[in-house]
């Protein structure tokens, strides 16, 4: 039994040393320090823009159709020469996601033919009022000041999970199976 106690305290002691030396700590000082999310993390939705500032969303409502919890509501309008919002002929005049209904399954970004909706890394979604959980287009749309360099293309097999990142996360599959 003494040996088991020793083993246990060894683990605790190892972590104490790591913490005191500042090398390899596993916890974060959360509000000040934030953990970086993996690229395929499905957090708060983002509506992306083109380089020239036009919205990518054309209001096709495929996201609303595929949504299993019916959290998305949108109404489309036609672009006019005076009011050009998106690159196509139509744009989403109203785009709402009910975040209390959303189950973060990611079907919306998968269904989007324009790569307009994408689930970003943000996971801080607590609010005080229930009505605030209905996110409007303005809440999700990338602001023009933000720049459009960080355009995020949805492709679960190529861009998000590259071979390197896959190996980093999971280890070499060939090594693990030992063949």
């Amino acid at each position: 039994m003494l040996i088991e106690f020793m083993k246990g305290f060894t683990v605790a002691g190892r972590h104490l040393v790591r913490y005191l030396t500042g090398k390899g700590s596993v916890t974060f000082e959360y509000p000040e320090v934030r953990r970086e999310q993996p690229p395929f993390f499905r957090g708060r939705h983002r509506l992306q823009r083109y380089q020239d500032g036009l919205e990518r969303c054309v209001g096709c409502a495929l996201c609303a159709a595929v949504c299993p919890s019916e959290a998305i509501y949108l109404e489309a309008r036609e672009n006019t020469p005076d009011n050009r919002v998106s690159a196509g002929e139509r744009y989403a005049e109203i785009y709402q996601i009910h975040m209390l209904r959303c189950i973060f399954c990611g079907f919306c970004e998968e269904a989007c033919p324009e790569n307009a909706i994408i689930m970003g890394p943000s996971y801080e979604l607590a609010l005080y009022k229930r009505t605030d959980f209905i996110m409007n287009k303005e809440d999700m749309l990338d602001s023009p000041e933000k720049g459009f360099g960080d355009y995020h293309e949805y492709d679960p097999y190529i861009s998000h999970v590259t071979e390197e990142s896959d190996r980093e996360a999971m280890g070499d599959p060939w090594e693990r199976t030992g063949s």
Partner: protein
Amino acid sequence: MADQSVHPSLKPAPEDVPFVLNGKEVVGKKGETIITVAAREGVYIPHYCWHPSLSVAGNCRLCLVEVHMPNPRADNKPTPLPKPAIACQTPVVPGMHVFTESELAKDCQSGMMEFLLVNHPLDCPICDRGGECMLQRYSMEYGTGHARMVDKKRKFKKPQADPLIDIERNRCIMCTRCVRFCDEVAGEHVMGVFARGADNYIGTFGQGPVSNILSGNVIDICPVGCLTSRPFRFKARVWELVQTQSTSVWDASGAKVTYWTRSNQLYRTTPPSRKYHETYTINEDTAEFIDNITRFGSDFPAHEDRWEESRVRIGEGLVPAAFREAVRQAARGLTRVREQHGPDALAVLVSPRATMEEGYLAAKFARTVIGTGNVDWRMSFQTAEASDAAALAFSHASGDLEDGFDAVVLVNGDYLHQAPVFAMQVKEYARLNEKPLILIGHHHDAYFAPHASWQLHCRPGETAHVLELLALAVRGNDNAKDQLSAITGAQAEELDKLLQLLGHAHRKGLLIQSLEDMNGANLPQDVPALLGLKSALGEAWDYIPVLRDRNAFGLYAAGAQPGRLPGAEGAVRKAWGLGESAALPVDSGVPARLLAEKIEAGEIKGLLCLGADILHNAPERERLVAALDKLEFFAVTDLFRSEITEKADVFFAAASHLERDGTYCDLEGNLARLVEALPPAGGSRPDWEVLAGIAKEMDGRGFDYSSVAQVFDEMIRLVAPDFAGSFKALMLKGPRNDLTIKDPGGARTRGPEYNPGDYRIDGAHFRWKADPLPTPEKASPAPERQELNEGEFLVTWGEHVQGSDYHLDRASIARLLKMAPTAEMNPEDAYRLGLEDGDRAVVHTGSDSIEVVVKVRRGPAPGVLYIPSGLGDARFAGLSAAPLARLEAVEAGKEAAPAG
């Protein structure tokens, strides 16, 4: 026995052709194509350009099938044809073997799909057709799933030709369905294919609009998203909408429609949707076309003028009140007038857009609770005598288009604009089956004229005389034939052929007469004259009167007019709980047409009006509105705030046609169910609830209804005693019922599944045979002909369905489509005056003058000018029949001359 030289319809029936389809022995008729027989046998062959109602174009090549023909050189063994054949164009041949699902056929289908997608932009996320597109569907079912096209796709500029139809040429696959529809069904050559080869595109001539009243159907039959609806543009995706199978509120033909709704709003109206893979989708191969008024004019309840709560008058103003309070006030007002002035000082008006149940309750309410016969719907007629003639016409009505016909006679009328779908069905049946169309009168519908086998023209006022002469000639009176020839200008041998044909069409004939005010004061003569012709022709001829009012026949049957009970008097007394001695006023009653007169004379003191549109659309609108001030009590149910509802003492917010259940009857006597597609807006109630409420408040017995189905069941037992069935059992037959079903495919539908024939209660049930009128031995004397000087015309007019209407003015079609007044004239007159189609002219009638666009058609008789009333400033309501008019051409670029 007449032969084929009289008319091509008198040819022998085609012979049977046995052949093999996918290994199964089937039988087609000689001259039929493979795809027609396959469709009948339940074998689906993919197609874009082929449409069952249109001619064969053979340009999409998607219906390629493998055909083996009996080879005479190899002992008649089936041998493969060297190339696959298109099923839509290849006629069936005895002994042929057709394979629609062989390797070769599948290879052809996927290859053709790849070709058709070469220039298609694949902008499905933007396209309104997405979700119900044939191109999407066939790509999934027959396509390869990839494209080898790497070059740039063809691009066109977008034209803005039509206010109702959006053209996006990039998506077009050149099936030419729309071109053929306009040419063949809509009867107007406005669309065409332009340019050559890879550059060809669909367009309208001169970039003009597709002005036809049936043009909206090209949206449905377009297999891709090239032609889409403008009012519906980008409003919603089709899979989000709930479909309700209901019926048109506009078309007296009884067109069945699907209302597509979402969140208490109507988004679009289409012909009935069809089942496809466990879901309901739009029917591209539909033959049940609807008119533009139904398609783009059914959304009027959403107008901003809508009043959604009941109101009662307190002092000068109308203040919102609870429904019960409004009912109490109305009952009190009606009781007061009845006690002071007697029951006959009260009148009940029923809108022609009311359902049969509402008409029945109005009749019951007026006769039992108030005790008067003053209940009527017949406001749209020029004179009270004309409305009586309509009652005579209805009592002789019989026949149904579904049974087909061997010959059809149409008397005076702008049928296409009065009952568009009915007119289309008549023309299409005659055109496709090569049946003879015979037009008689001073104005023939230009829609029928190009297909007419005989046209007998006369002057306004002579129609009855011509019909009497024809009836005499049918009975073998040669003198009458000569007179007919003289008055109509028809050649003697043509008349001989016509008489031979009329005598021969013993299998089934159809006499169709318009009861519209075009004939004005002539209706009382014209109706008996045509009924005389009917009795001369014999039992095999049916008679269908045509009226623009949606539920005219249903209200007539439900007894909502003077002189008519919903059934036999004994049965009615029993059902209404009246003893033998109790008063039941039937024949007494003021026709609606005389209402203004009676109010002015002080004979009518109180009015209950169900649907203010009957007052708004009345020929003497101004006089009526002024007379309403003299009423002691006026209660009205309506949708909108208007100058008439402002005069009401009690206003009931009515539920619109989208918000209530009920039954409509079309002009052939078929029932169609109006299904509640949306919940009633605000505090609005259907009219039957208003009536039942007032009746109960006035201590009327037998008004304890809890649903419209109870009213229907009580009514139908009187109207059609042989009719076995109930509202629920019959109207909700089939897989679709009142519950909203979410199908696996996502489409939500409700409403009855319509099977043709299910709801017919005519014949033995509904129509009681009136004694045929005897044919007079002598024709009435011919009216004297007026000499017309150069440029002078006799004006005849009809209420244009696309024209001004109280409800239609609040629909999207009125907002988008502005139509200029037109005047139709005979080519003879146009040639003499040097006018061409599309020229401008000014018509002077008495003190009025109006600028019109000239249409040169074979419709009006020489010397007759036809002006549809309601378009632009053209208002002819209240004028006497056929006034003399002077026509002056306006030279291009010049302003019209001032009135004078």
